[in-house]
């Protein structure tokens, strides 16, 4: 390395900032293209379906402790 520290820094800035901009610009277009494609292939109804599955399985996940808590809550509430 005969380059000075400042040269290295300039290099880093040039290539680094360049890469960041190129990458994120490509990502803007890729994201746009992806969204367009997904919305054509899997329109909202389908997506909504997916989201419903999500909710169902997340309800399944409510664990025993919480179920016990619910029962307790209801029981305690009634007692009052």
């Amino acid at each position, binding site marked *: 390395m005969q380059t000075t520290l400042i040269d290295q820094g300039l290099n880093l800035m040039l290539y680094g900032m360049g890469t960041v901009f190129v990458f*994120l610009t490509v990502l803007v277009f890729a994201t746009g293209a992806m969204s367009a494609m997904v919305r054509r292939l899997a329109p909202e109804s389908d997506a909504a379906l997916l989201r419903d599955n999500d909710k169902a399985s997340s309800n399944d996940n409510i664990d025993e402790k919480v179920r016990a808590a619910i029962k307790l809550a209801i029981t305690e509430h009634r007692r009052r």
Partner: protein
Amino acid sequence: MENLNNLWLSSGLAQLELAQLFMMAIGFGLLFLAIRRGFEPLLLVPIGFGTLLANIPGAGFDAAPVYDAMGHLASPGGLLYYIYEAGIATGMFPLIIFMGVGAMTDFGPLLANPKTLLLGAAAQVGIFTTVLGAVTLGHFGILDFSIRDAASIGIIGGADGPTAIFVTSKLSPELLGAVAVAAYSYMALVPIIQPPIMRALTTEAERQITMVQLRSVSTAEKIVFPLTLLVLVALLLPDAAPLLGMFCFGNLMRECGVVNRLSDTTQNALINIVTIFLGLGVGSKMSADKFLNWETLGILGLGAVAFCIGTAAGVLMAKLMNRFVKTPINPLIGAAGVSAVPMAARVANKVGLEANPQNFLLMHAMGPNVAGVIGSAVAAGVMISLVSGM
């Protein structure tokens, strides 16, 4: 009598050096900032406490294990030693945290308005101008910074804790304490650092710009996005793959809807456990010989500069984009491009509300905010790759 003397010699008072006392004061200062001032407490409480532990004279928290000639363990290492070597030197902890952050990130606002990614790109200018500042100080012999140090200091401007820790542990481990403390402190100071810059660079009319409501984003788009990002990373920038790969993995677990129990654990037990140990491990690098020098002051100063420039670049980029796009962008959300999720987005919202009480920018600012995470992970990858080859 000899025993009493030994006991005295082994006591902290006898071994205490002024430098350690000073470092313990810094540890208490971090705890004060975290607990009373609310400075990023999830990290600064463990880092502050780790600083205290690492500087207890004679306690050996960061001692390496000693093996005898036969290879048997003669004396085990200290807790902080094991945490640092297993979790930080290997890069495991920052990557697991990144997975957890991915699992907590909603890319919806970004997907609804993908051109805000450019704001996240612009804000990374702070990183690289800071690198330049650091090498200048190094070049003229003012401070002892190598190119590796400069890259580690620059990444503070990324306003992203795990990214900063990941880069610094790879390039300049001896700066880890100072860089991490600077990164988290300035992230906490975002509500103080950013508004003056935002106001100085925008007109009242610009700050009042109302943005159109974001379209709703389908679950399918949210599932495909982390995979798209991963493909781009794989094709264009494999050096950023560790950070962004784990980030995308966490996000996919969140959005795919079929592994909710894994996603829940990633967002809770796992990220909490790793956060505690990451903080303690960073604290273990807060030793007097590594922290009490002029370089640390330089790092703190350059870190502040990085945040300011990043903020300014984000705002100016938004103003530049307004010359080309039809639906105008409120330039305040450009400041959110530094990341510091979600603090910077909240700051953009608050400054926006000051100018126009009906103008809620929070969701709009979340786009550049998460874009900033991607942007600084990209910058981290580039720097690790370029600097390692220099």
